[in-house]
């Protein structure tokens, strides 16, 4: 707790007290926003917890549950969609047996979608732990996932 309090304090001053920036940095540090972290931010910024919670649930970038070791992001922008990104997404769901927004039981993968990464020439795109995989097809999914097996 002492550590959390110190971290939140630092992140607040780094962000000049801006709530959204603080929450983003807290999440970067802990991979998600825990109840304790939200309470600490609320206390330090003197913003009611209900408002902090409101913000944390309104914006899709925030996660209230711990994330797996690798975050898989499938781009569902229009360009990726017309190049059949849904097939890629479904194959990942099937292969890992995980729903969008959820984490595999072994805490290895969290599956998320994003509305556009702006790398449309490479569509459909999936990003695993920050690494981009372009021109994805359902067949290629297995190969990519194997890299992280």
């Amino acid at each position, binding site marked *: 707790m002492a550590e959390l309090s110190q971290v939140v304090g630092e992140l607040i001053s780094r962000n*000049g007290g*801006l*709530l*959204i*920036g603080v*929450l*983003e940095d807290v999440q970067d540090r802990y991979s998600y926003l825990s109840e304790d972290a939200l309470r600490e931010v609320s206390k330090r910024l003197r*913003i009611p917890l209900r*408002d902090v919670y*409101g*913000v944390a649930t*309104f*914006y*899709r*970038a*925030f996660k209230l549950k711990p994330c797996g070791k690798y975050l898989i992001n499938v781009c*569902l*922008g*229009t*360009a990726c*969609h*017309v*190049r*059949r990104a849904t*097939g890629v997404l*479904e*194959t990942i769901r*099937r292969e890992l047996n995980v729903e969008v927004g959820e984490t595999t039981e072994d805490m290895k993968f969290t599956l998320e979608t*994003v*509305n*556009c*990464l*702006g*790398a*449309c*020439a*490479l*569509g459909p*795109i999936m990003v695993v732990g920050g690494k*981009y995989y*372009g021109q994805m*097809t*359902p*067949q290629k999914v297995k190969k990519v996932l194997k890299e992280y097996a």
Partner: protein
Amino acid sequence: MNIGEFEGLARGLIERREAAKNVCITVCSGTGCRACGGEEVVRAFAAELENLGLTGTVELRDTGCHGFCERGPIVVILPEGIFYQRVTVDAVPEIIEQTVRHGKLIERLLYEDPQSKEKVVYEKDVPFYKRQHRLVLANNLLIDPTSIEDYISIGGYQSLVKALAMQPEEIIEIIKRSGLRGRGGAGFPTGRKWEHCRRAKGTIKYVICNGDEGDPGAYMDRSVMEGNPHSVIEGMIIGAYAIGANEGWIYVRNEYPLAVKHLTRAVEQARELGILAGSVLGLDFPFDVRIAKGAGAFVCGEGTALIASIEGKIGVPRQRPPRTTQQGLFGKPTNMNNVETWANVPLIIDKGAEWFSSIGTETSKGTKIFSLVGKVQNTGLVEVPMGATLAQIVYDIGGGAPNGRDVKAIQIGGPSGGCLPKELFYLPIDYDSLVEAGAMMGSGGLIVMDEDTCMVDVARYFSNFLQEESCGKCVTCREGTQRMYEILTDITEGRGKEEDLDLLEELGATVRDASLCGLGQTAPNPVLSTMRYFRGEYLAHITEKRCPAGVCRALTAYRIDPDRCTGCMLCKKQCPQQAIEGERKKPHTIVQDACIRCRICFDVCKVGAVMKTGVEVVHA
């Protein structure tokens, strides 16, 4: 640093650049090129130059996005401008040995014009660039976006110096005369907005740069923020001086980490040189810029929602009036412009209102950047004068659809825009002419669709996007987009009824008329425009239970043509459901009850034996 000192510094940097005789290897380091190996290419060049002891004589420059993303990673060798595309790490030693040291070209890395089959040597001759009119994007190719010296060496911040010698009203007059309109989509005249804000009562005022580029398939603003961040900052300082603001904010999507990094760096550099912070170039004009990150909410692209987001609240739009120029950030008068709008400002101050207004059409001046994506050969960023036709962009610059397919339609303007059929490609792109056709220019996303794209599926895609992104404040938008999505899902899954089309129209009109902000007011556009131009496709789904493009899964089945199948077993091996039966060298069959229609067999078959068909056919 005061103005005199800055001019001295600038003169030195400009002279040094002009006198530079060294070969310079520029590598595109935009997000697109980075994602396909650009960073590794840069590292390989650096290591190789170091190995050969060439670090001092050959310059290496990471630049912003060149825009021809289809061919990334892109390497351009200056001063000649030799253009190499799809450069891999393996090619790096060869480029240095052959081209840099001996001036020889490497044929396989050159771009081949798909029409004439001729190799193109120089960047300026590549048809994709040749047919563009690049103003805002022009400097992306020339500078390292993380170096303020680079920006100054091509004349950066000279417009600021020029503007600071003018009266604020004079600047507003120039922007008004130039005819610049907001590039974010709505097209409000920029000069008038500045004037409103200048005249608003109050001593504390803000300027904001809206970099929350949320339209899927649009990344023009990202490339400007990443590739030339100082041009945005310079525009903002000029605007702030004209309006009387002392604080500026840049709001960037959190999906654009590189843009955040480059902007942050640029702001720090500008502060160090005394261009920002306490006093701009030694004048009695303090101005500083802060960067706020978004958190993944599409609605925050709307002005009042964006302001709420900076203030740390949920991004919900509010009723206007009062206009944000009267009551904006923290309740103070606020002038908000889009990234591309701000980046146009230094150009106009430099070259004059008359120059700017000579480009474009009667009501839409200057150029516009579009991101041309989807089923198109040359994916990338395209900057053309206002009034260019859709055909020029899709065919002349984009090269049409890949694999000899026919372009069917384009989607313009993102979730607020519409789909236009190829019969309307003669239309010029400007603020006004597309609205009549049921679309809008929007912020600049242009998604090309070919015969394999189902327009009902596209409408469903956008209504799903909008029902997820609706902030929930207005009932019509919150409930209406959901109901539209459900009806469209029914149609794509074979449960559609003919009266659904009337219901969609009625629902669309209600959502449009009774929602507060732009998101809701334009939400029905993708649905209504596809219904207007592609009614036949809707009816095929509803009455024949058939998806003509073979996209909608519930209405599409796969079947193997026994005459074509060679029994190679490839599909059988790949099928995730083991739904394919058959022995080697004998025709295979698909067990329809086990098939999940994932399409893998269709994609892997090398002889085209797997065919799409209607669902009834296989069950007959």
